[in-house]
């Protein structure tokens, strides 16, 4: 296969296994490109991309912007904090205004689940979902799987535990879809209050004992506690959360194998993982960030190749 089966990347849910393979093979080429003395290719010099961030983001926005620039696309940035959205403009109006400036592709982060799907039904440009509420964050899941593949050779058959706030996490949901598609085994681990009731319907198992989960897995993906999405208290205190679901060096050393530690960032050091774990050689957190640029280049390149002249 040399073409994606979709025209937008709205979620992992809409992808096939072959799409993921194609994205990874393309990302391999771009990873080589971004390690050259000159880290840029001219492929997208006639493409304009708008980065629309209706919600705060640092690394995802930078990663997308860098990926776009490495492909020579023209880039415009928009963040809701300084825009007409505050003046009451609707999403479609905002986007259509931007598109009338001849934009070919939209990268959007939005607090509402399904914002990307909604937009794709009303506008012509290609859309990449950079996170929609607690729904999906497809490029994060792709770069996570890509990093597992890079570290362990393949994703199929690997045991992955996702630890933390599964309820509010778009990273968790996209990761579950992506890992399932590639044939990995998945467990989720966290306080019962932060695990969705019907999560097992997605084909994952629930484990509430962190030590058991770590002993079982090849890879632990540690999620951040998303205080900003919690209107009520889901656990008694941060200290108690850390005691039950935080990973520290002592816990890792007590396992009879060496597991891979991942984190989508930003890290709450000392909460979900301690500094000595985050900075250890078992952690591939900074590899994830580097791979993020290559994977996003692949997604943008493959979607752009479907935009007809």
């Amino acid at each position, binding site marked *: 296969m*040399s073409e994606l089966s979709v025209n937008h990347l709205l979620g992992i849910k809409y992808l096939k296994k072959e799409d993921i393979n194609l994205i990874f093979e393309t990302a391999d*080429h771009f990873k*080589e490109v971004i390690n050259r*003395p*000159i880290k*840029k290719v001219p492929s997208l010099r006639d493409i304009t991309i708008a980065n629309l961030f209706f919600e705060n983001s640092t690394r995802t926005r930078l990663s997308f912007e860098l990926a776009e620039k490495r*492909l020579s696309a023209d880039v415009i940035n928009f963040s809701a904090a300084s825009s007409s959205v505050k003046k009451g403009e609707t999403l479609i109006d905002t986007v259509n205004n931007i598109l009338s400036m001849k934009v070919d592709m939209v990268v959007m982060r939005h607090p509402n689940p399904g914002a990307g799907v909604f937009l794709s039904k009303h506008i012509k440009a290609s859309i990449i979902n950079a996170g929609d509420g607690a729904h999906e964050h497809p490029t994060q899941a792709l770069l996570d799987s890509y990093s597992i593949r890079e570290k362990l050779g393949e994703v199929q058959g690997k045991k992955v535990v996702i630890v933390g706030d599964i309820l509010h996490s778009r990273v968790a949901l996209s990761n579950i879809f992506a890992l399932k598609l590639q044939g990995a085994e998945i467990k989720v681990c966290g306080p019962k209050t932060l695990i969705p009731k019907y999560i097992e319907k997605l084909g994952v198992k629930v484990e509430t004992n962190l030590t058991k989960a770590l002993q079982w897995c090849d890879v632990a993906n540690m999620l951040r506690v998303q205080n900003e999405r919690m209107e009520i208290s889901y656990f008694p205190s941060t200290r108690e959360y850390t005691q039950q679901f935080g990973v520290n060096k002592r816990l890792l050393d007590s396992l009879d194998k060496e597991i891979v530690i991942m984190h989508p960032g930003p890290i709450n050091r000392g909460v979900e993982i301690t500094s000595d774990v985050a900075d250890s050689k078992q952690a591939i957190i900074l590899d994830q960030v580097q791979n993020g640029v290559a994977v996003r280049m692949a997604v943008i390149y493959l979607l752009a*190749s479907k935009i007809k002249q």
Partner: protein
Amino acid sequence: MEIMSQKLLLSAKEIDIILHRLACQLIENHTHFEDTVLVGIQPRGIFLADRIKQILINDYKLSTIKMGYLDITFYRDDFRRGEKPLEANKTKIDFTVEDKRVVFIDDVLYTGRSIRSALTAIQSFGRPIEIELLTLIDRRFSRHLPIQPNYRGRQVDAINQEKVKVHWIENGGEDAVYLVNS
């Protein structure tokens, strides 16, 4: 259905003679290859590049030759213009070309657009002193750009409907060049 016909342009024996001649011509200009790097253009130039390198090593004891493979997919000028999506291949250049003499190696020189892309792509690895081009088959009168080879195996006059197919043993077959009428 139209019947496809093909004519043998070069046999294995002829290819062997030509490769040795091209290797000698390279030595004439580059002597010890201290500042020279060979770059095979992906996907099909790499077989020719490997062969030339083998001759230089085995027959002329030039064992320190540097060689890499360059993929030009992301530098092509027909992105989003063709029927089929472009498929990338592996670039493998583990040296810089800063102040080096680069020799591009490709099997067929046709419109010259691939070489134009390669000229842009190689700049990502530094600024070479000069760039030369070695090609097994030079299709005359079909250039879209002012690009000519420095070393050529055989010149061929072919009309646009015709294709030049280069087969290598490494590519699953025999060494042979055919003119295919499709």
